[in-house]
């Protein structure tokens, strides 16, 4: 992999993944997007293991866009695992879901999600939501410097 992944998109819906990627590229917000189609692949990616053991904790994506209803391991479990490990807990995670359940919203915040976005049903609004997500998280938010957490962890903080 010559370019670092900027966004990990965890999405099992092929159309939603396609729309999301197209919107991010059209507005030049991210080129290097890795799609994980289930929660298990997302965790392998983030924890640099399995098919992704060549990756490094010091180069996390700037953003994880996380669907909730996923094969194998659901989105909430992925979020819980990310927040439970020092090496991954600071990675920005935005839930992007069609769920309208208040329970999911509350659980998401309880588990420490960075932000929570409901997928608009309508195509234009979906693209606009993705654009706003990309604008804020790729251009305005300051991600951690590469390796900061892995390093500060090694120092024993």
């Amino acid at each position: 992999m010559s370019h670092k992944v900027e966004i990990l998109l965890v999405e099992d819906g092929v159309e939603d993944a396609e729309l999301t990627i197209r919107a991010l590229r059209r507005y030049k917000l991210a080129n290097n997007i890795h799609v994980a189609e289930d929660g298990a692949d997302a965790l392998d990616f983030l924890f640099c293991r399995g098919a992704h053991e060549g990756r490094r904790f010091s180069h996390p994506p700037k953003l994880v866009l996380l669907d909730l209803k996923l094969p194998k391991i659901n989105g909430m479990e992925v979020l819980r695992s990310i927040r439970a490990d020092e090496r991954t807990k600071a990675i920005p995670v935005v839930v992007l879901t069609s769920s309208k359940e208040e329970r999911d919203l509350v659980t998401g915040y309880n588990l420490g999600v960075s932000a929570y976005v409901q997928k608009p049903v309508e195509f234009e609004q979906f693209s606009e939501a993705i654009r706003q997500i990309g604008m804020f998280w790729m251009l305005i938010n300051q991600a951690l410097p590469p390796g900061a957490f892995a390093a500060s962890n090694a120092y024993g903080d």
Partner: protein
Amino acid sequence: MSHDVEILLVEDSPEDAELTIRALRRNKLANEIHVAEDGAEALDFLFCRGAHADREFSHAPRLVLLDLKLPKVSGLEVLRALRADERTRAIPVVILTSSKEERDLIDGYKLGVNAYAQKPVDFEQFSETVRQIGMFWMLINQAPPPGAFVASNAQRA
């Protein structure tokens, strides 16, 4: 208070506060903005005590915009107190600071900040940054449902 506060702006610089409020209002992103000029007042506001004893936890602001260098109680201490209490820990907090210290960035993420934005020095860019923050956090992000955390806390207790 007839209208709920949408944004708590914790900012000791009158000029930065003025610019921020103007950018939010001009773009119709928030009307009800409360400014706390130091960390102690911010905590009184968020914990519904002192001069803000008539507020209720169930009417939390949708967003806290938090400067770091503040009189009395620092921004990171405000963040720490918010995240340590069940009633306030889900409130979205975005740090907006002129600090360029990597240490502040790392500490912010360690303490569970939702996002971290650096104040641009240039006037136009500052306004644009505030607009992007407002677009995402007021229009796209779903805030925690009012009272959900207070309620789930009360049920558990």
